[in-house]
C-alpha cells in the first residue's frame, strides 16, 4: 500500500514537474486552493532543469493535490505516442522509463524516492525536437507542507463564468451594431442570438414609422438591420423586415416624406411617386426634399439593380424555407417605365 502511494506521488511529481501548462498556471494563474486546512495535500515543489550543459533557472511552487485523485493514471504525461516501458518499486524508491515515438522520438528514464511527506525525482530525457538532439535532466524535490482545499474546479467554473460574461458583453455590443453575422451558426455569438433577436423584435414596431426606421438604420445601415431581421426569422414574434419597411414606406407616402422613400427600401413606392415629381426636370431645379427619391428613381429607371435583390441571408441553424420564384413587382415597374419614358 505504501509502495503504491509512493509510486503515485512519484508519478504525480513527474507530471507536475514536466507539465509546462501546470507550471505556468502555478506561476501566473489564479490561486486555485486554500492553504492551511482542508481534505487535500499541499506540496511545495522545486524543479530544476539542465539542458545540454546549460542550467535553466529553477522554480519553486506550491500545489494542492486533491485527495482521492487517481494521480497514478492521470499524472503520467499523456501523449499518444508514449508508453511506460518500465516501472519498478523497491521500498520507497521507484524507477521508471518511458519511450515516445513519432516525429520527435524521446526516451525518458528516472527514479523517485518518496515518503508520504516528501519526494525526490530525477529524470533524464533524450531525443530530438525540431531536428535537434535534446539531452535534458530534470530534478524535482517536493515536500508536503500540510493540508489544503483544492479549488481548481471552482476556479475553472469562475473562469468559465467570466468568459461567458465577456462573451455576453461582446455579443451585446454586436447586437447593438446589428452585426448579425456574428450570430450565425458556428460563430461566436450563436448561443446569444436571443440578445440580437430581442433587440430586433423590440425595435420592429417603432420602425413602422419613418422616423423610427431612420433612427434604427442610421448608424448600422439598412443591410445590417435587414440581415438581423432575417437572422431572427425563427423568433417569436417573427420580425419581418419587408412588412416593417412596407409599413414605414406607406406612412412616408401619406406624410409626403419623399426623402424617406430614397433610402432604398421603398422602391415600389418610388416607382409610383417619382415620375410625376422628378421626370423631365433639370436636376438643379428639383426641390431638395425630393432629391433622395429622385436620385433613387434615376438609379432604378436607368439600369441600377436594388441591392436587396441580391443580399445574402445569414446562415441559421434552421434551414431556410425555399421560396417559390415570384415576379419582382419593382423590376416589372422599372421595365414598364423604361418602355414609356425617355427619362
Amino acid at each position, binding site marked *: 500500500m505504501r509502495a503504491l502511494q509512493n509510486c503515485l506521488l512519484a508519478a504525480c511529481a513527474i507530471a507536475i514537474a514536466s507539465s509546462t501548462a501546470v507550471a505556468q498556471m502555478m506561476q501566473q494563474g489564479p490561486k486555485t486552493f486554500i492553504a492551511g486546512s482542508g481534505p487535500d495535500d499541499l506540496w511545495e515543489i522545486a524543479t530544476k532543469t539542465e539542458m545540454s550543459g546549460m542550467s535553466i533557472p529553477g522554480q519553486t511552487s506550491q500545489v494542492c493535490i486533491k485527495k482521492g485523485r487517481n494521480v497514478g493514471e492521470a499524472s503520467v504525461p499523456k501523449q499518444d505516442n508514449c508508453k511506460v516501458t518500465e516501472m519498478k518499486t523497491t521500498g520507497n524508491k521507484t524507477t521508471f522509463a518511458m519511450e515516445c515515438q513519432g516525429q520527435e522520438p524521446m526516451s525518458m528514464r528516472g527514479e523517485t524516492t518518496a515518503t508520504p511527506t516528501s519526494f525526490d525525482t530525477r529524470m533524464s530525457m533524450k531525443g530530438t525536437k525540431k531536428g535537434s538532439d535534446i539531452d535534458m535532466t530534470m530534478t524535482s524535490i517536493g515536500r508536503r507542507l500540510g493540508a489544503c482545499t483544492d479549488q481548481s474546479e471552482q476556479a475553472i467554473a469562475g473562469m468559465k463564468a467570466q468568459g461567458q460574461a465577456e462573451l455576453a458583453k461582446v455579443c451585446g455590443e454586436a447586437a447593438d451594431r446589428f452585426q448579425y453575422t456574428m450570430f450565425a451558426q458556428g460563430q461566436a455569438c450563436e448561443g446569444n442570438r436571443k440578445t440580437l433577436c430581442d433587440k430586433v423584435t423590440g425595435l420592429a414596431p417603432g420602425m413602422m414609422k419613418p422616423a423610427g426606421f431612420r433612427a434604427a438604420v442610421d448608424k448600422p445601415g439598412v443591410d445590417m438591420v435587414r440581415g438581423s431581421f432575417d437572422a431572427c426569422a425563427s423568433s417569436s414574434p417573427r420580425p419581418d423586415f419587408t412588412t416593417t419597411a412596407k409599413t414605414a414606406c406607406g406612412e412616408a407616402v401619406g406624410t409626403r416624406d419623399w426623402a424617406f422613400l430614397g433610402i*432604398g427600401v421603398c422602391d415600389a413606392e418610388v416607382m409610383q411617386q417619382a415620375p410625376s415629381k422628378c421626370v423631365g426636370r433639370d*436636376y438643379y431645379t428639383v426641390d431638395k426634399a425630393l432629391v433622395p427619391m*429622385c436620385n*433613387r428613381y434615376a*438609379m432604378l429607371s436607368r439600369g441600377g439593380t436594388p*441591392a436587396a435583390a441580391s*443580399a445574402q441571408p445569414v446562415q441559421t441553424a434552421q434551414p431556410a424555407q425555399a421560396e417559390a420564384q415570384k415576379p419582382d413587382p419593382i423590376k416589372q415597374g422599372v421595365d414598364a417605365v423604361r418602355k414609356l419614358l425617355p*427619362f
Partner: protein
Amino acid sequence: MRLTALAVAAAAIALGAHRVDAQPVDRWPGAAAAYVVEVDGAERWSHDASARLRPASLTKILTALVVMESAGDDELVAVSAHAAAAQGARIGLRRGMQVPVGDLMTAMLLRSANDACLALVSHVARTEKSFVAQMNARAAALGLVDSQFENACGFDGPRHRASARDLARLAHVAMAHPRFAAIVARERGQARARDGRVFKFDNTNALIGRVDGARGVKTGWTQAAGRCLVAFAERRGTAVMLVLLGAPDRWWDAVAMIETAFEEARASPAPQK
C-alpha cells in the same frame, strides 16, 4: 518643398490605388462620349476611357494642383488686365484687385471662374505658356499618357486633350490634397478682394449637397466638349469616382451611375485585403 513632397506622396498613393481588376464593361451606353466609373480605385464601368477628348474646365483640376504646389492660400494675387478680361464663366474680378490665392482657388474650382484661373496662372508663372509647360510636366509625372494641355483654364484647342481615365487618376491625386478636397466639397463659396468687395457663388457641381456622400470634384462645359463632370462620393468606406466627357444628361446619368455603384458595392463588397 513640403507641398511638393506631399503631392508626390499623394500621387504615389493614387497611382498605386488605381487598378483595373477586371475588364470594365460599358454599363451605360450612350451616356457620354467617354466615361469611367471606379469603385474603391478599381474601374467598374467605362466607355472609351482612353480616348483623347476635350476636357473643358476639368482642366482646372490640374491647374489647381500646380498652383497649390507653388503658392500658399494667403498670398495676395494682383489681378492682371488679361485675367480681368477673361471670357466664359467668371466672377467679375477687375484689374488691380488683390485677392488671396485660396479665394481665387475657390472661385476657380466652384464657379469655374476663368478670371480667377488666369489671375492664379499669372501669379505662379511669368506667362500662361510657361504655366502650361508646368502642367504638362506634372501630367507626365502622374502618368497621364493620354492628356496634353495647351491652355490653363480649359478652353478648346486642337491639342488640348485628356482621357477619362487620366482625369480620374488626376482627380484622385487632387482629392488627396486637403486644400483641394476642402474646397470642392463646399456647396457655395466666396472670394474677398482686399478692397472689401466680396464675390459669392454656388458650386456648379450640382451633386454636392444632393447626393449622399458627394465630396467633389469639378464640372466642365464648352460647345465642343459638351457637358463634362468629375464626381467623387464616399459612403461607409466605399469610394466612387466618376468621369463623364461629353455627357448630354450628365446630372441624372451621374446620379444613376453613382447610386448604382454604391448599391452594387453594398450587395457584393470587395474582399478584405
